[in-house]
């Protein structure tokens, strides 16, 4: 075959060969990729995406729990970082080619997906009426609407982990199980002084840390009795003043700490506040060296934040009855108990905690029950939808300004208050616990 006209040196034969190689490699690549979720992909499998249980050991533990719960159901459990996971679901729904059946995430993640990405599960909640979900949790699952959009499967809260070594500097007369914030401050000041100026208290202020939950769910309710309605009140100013004093006895390396269990188990700090699942590894090696105590009380009482994880069905996903089966399995009492035993997330259904819990989890469950009794519950933002993250950012910016950069407290709260008001009005979100109910959008007070 002699090709007469040589097009610019690229003979047709070599173009053919190039096309052939690409043609061959493409299907080959598509076909022989390895499934990385331990389950056969394809029909009859529930693809469960998740922003929870991402650490490798936790992910495998959760896969075991699912397998034991219902061996007939094959589940692809794919944990990952929030942003790529949520983007994936958004893309699938937009392209109406949904491959993900279910999504396990925090209330915030589920709020970001929102009603137009999640199926209405009110009927499923009805079927599970007997499981005993708490009323507050069910309000949360409505995402500010009248229907439920996910089923609560795990809940948790935040406690204080205390290395018993720190008890030497506990102010006399203070009961570690019902501290006040002032006693905590005095305690930590004494600890720092006795430790050659090296703070013994730590907070998760890193990029992936949950410090903003401390401000929203603990400082504000305990000092002001509310959140949005008392955002820039006089009590709020005292709360931030307290926070500055507390920060002066907090380890500066906290600005790069995401999980308190790391510095605690390394002995860098002795006392730390964090999410129960992010403290559980601290006492793992030597449980009897540790104490888990509820968060302190402020002038307005012991504010605490209940964190809720739930599973939603992705809108337009196939095999929805198989997904419902998965959710039913997850809310079975024995599955809930294996979750608390292995993952330190507490049941959302009525289930008596067994006595043989691992020591660290046992410590945490006592602290949780003490926190709930007589505590002032507050919930993460309700009805803020996609603005939930920006709402949280207001508190993060306040912390950076007031605590790290010593900006004027009242002035920062006023400016940040305007941003918050804009966000709430845009989302038309009525007030939520701990603020009193409001008819229209919640007003920043």
């Amino acid at each position, binding site marked *: 075959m002699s090709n007469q006209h040589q097009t*610019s040196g690229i003979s047709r034969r070599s173009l053919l060969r190039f096309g052939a190689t690409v043609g061959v490699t493409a299907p080959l690549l598509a076909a022989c990729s390895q499934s990385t979720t331990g389950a056969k992909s394809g029909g009859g499998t529930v693809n469960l995406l998740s922003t929870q249980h991402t650490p490798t050991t936790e992910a495998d533990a959760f896969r075991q729990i699912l397998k034991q719960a219902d061996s007939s159901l094959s589940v692809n459990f794919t944990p990952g970082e929030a942003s790529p996971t949520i983007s994936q679901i958004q893309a699938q729904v937009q392209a109406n080619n949904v491959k993900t059946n279910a999504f396990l995430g925090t209330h915030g993640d589920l709020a970001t997906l929102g009603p137009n990405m999640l199926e209405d599960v009110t009927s499923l909640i009805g079927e599970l009426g007997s499981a005993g979900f708490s009323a507050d949790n069910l309000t949360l699952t409505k995402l500010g609407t009248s229907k439920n959009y996910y089923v609560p499967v795990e809940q948790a809260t935040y406690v204080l982990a205390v290395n018993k070594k720190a008890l030497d500097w506990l102010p006399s007369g203070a009961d570690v199980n019902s501290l006040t914030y002032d006693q905590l401050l005095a305690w930590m000041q004494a600890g720092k002084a006795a430790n050659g100026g090296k703070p013994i208290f730590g907070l998760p202020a890193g990029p992936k840390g949950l410090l903003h939950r401390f401000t929203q769910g603990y400082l504000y309710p305990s000092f002001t009795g509310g959140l949005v309605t008392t955002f820039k009140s006089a009590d709020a100013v005292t709360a931030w003043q307290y926070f500055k004093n507390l920060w002066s006895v907090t380890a500066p390396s906290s600005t790069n700490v995401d999980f308190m269990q790391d510095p605690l188990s390394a002995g860098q700090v002795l006392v730390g506040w964090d999410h129960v699942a992010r403290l559980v590894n601290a006492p793992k090696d030597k449980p009897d060296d540790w104490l888990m105590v509820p968060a302190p009380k402020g002038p307005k009482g012991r504010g605490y934040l209940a964190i809720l994880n739930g599973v939603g069905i992705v809108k337009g996903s196939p095999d929805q009855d198989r997904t419902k089966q998965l959710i039913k399995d997850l809310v079975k009492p024995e599955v809930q108990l294996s979750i608390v035993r292995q993952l330190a997330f507490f049941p959302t259904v009525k289930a008596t905690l067994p006595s043989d819990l691992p020591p660290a989890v046992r410590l945490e469950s006592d602290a949780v029950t003490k926190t709930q009794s007589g505590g002032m519950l507050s919930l993460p933002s309700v009805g803020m939808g996609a603005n939930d993250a920006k709402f949280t950012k207001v508190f993060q910016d306040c912390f*950076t300004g007031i605590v790290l950069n010593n900006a004027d407290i009242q002035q920062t709260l006023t400016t940040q208050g305007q941003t918050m008001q804009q966000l709430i009005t845009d989302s038309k979100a009525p007030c939520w616990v701990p603020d009193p109910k409001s008819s229209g959008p919640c007003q920043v007070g």
Partner: protein
Amino acid sequence: MVATEVRPARRSALGRAAAPYALLLPSVLFMLALFGWPVISAVQQAFTGTHGGATQNWHDMVAEPHFWQSVRNTLLLVVVLIPVQFVLAVAMALLLRERLPGRGFYFYVWSVPLAVSDLAAGLVWLSIFTDNGYLNSALGWFGVNPVEWLSYQNASTMFLAVFLAELWRATSLVLIILVSGMQMMPRDYEEAAEVFGASFWQRLRHVTLPLMRPSIQVALILRTILAFQAFAVAQALTGNEFPLLVGQTYLWFAGLNDPHVASAVALVVLGVSMLTAIGYLVMLRRPDRSQGGER
């Protein structure tokens, strides 16, 4: 193929002039097919917003407290780091050419950081600089009490830590490009320069570096663009205390679920990278290719 090909005596002028474009076509089509629409939709996103007019996103971007600090940090990192990196990479390339014993091993170790992803690199240097890290341990062995390198209170040691980590991570990129460029350079020119009285520095300035201009230009462009993308290492070391421009993109996109402002920041990054690339292309234009046309 037995029959000898009878090629037309003179290929049409079009054939010869079109040659470069034909060679470029596959890459242009490939880029447009895959990234065309996504880039367009990203640009669109930057100018549409849930609330407010087209400039609302840009206003929000600038209003973010850390924005200007991240711009300053990114430029600081680029302006300070890249010159030092080039001096180091040229020195390393010249050392390799000296054929010291063990040079094969040296070159391997010097190109290893290229293989380390920036997440892993962040981890490595975190293990060194963190309060109970290896550096403080080493100091401890010598009786020096530990220093809080990464604490937000001492900004200078924080910048030094990020600077060293980025220097470690990204110098291999420049080194490998310079080395592969240096391969082709015959030694005659330098020998001639030496015979005619040029000292080491004169040889470097008048002969070696000018001859490595194509590689230097490529290394500069690629390194600068990647420098604007640097973010994971700084975040691993300092959390949000040393914010960088691309970090803002992640903050808006992943943190605040606002792809519109994220796209705006992304366009800023794109714009600045393009400006520097154009600058390099103009600055390092090759005068001796002035004969033009096909060589």
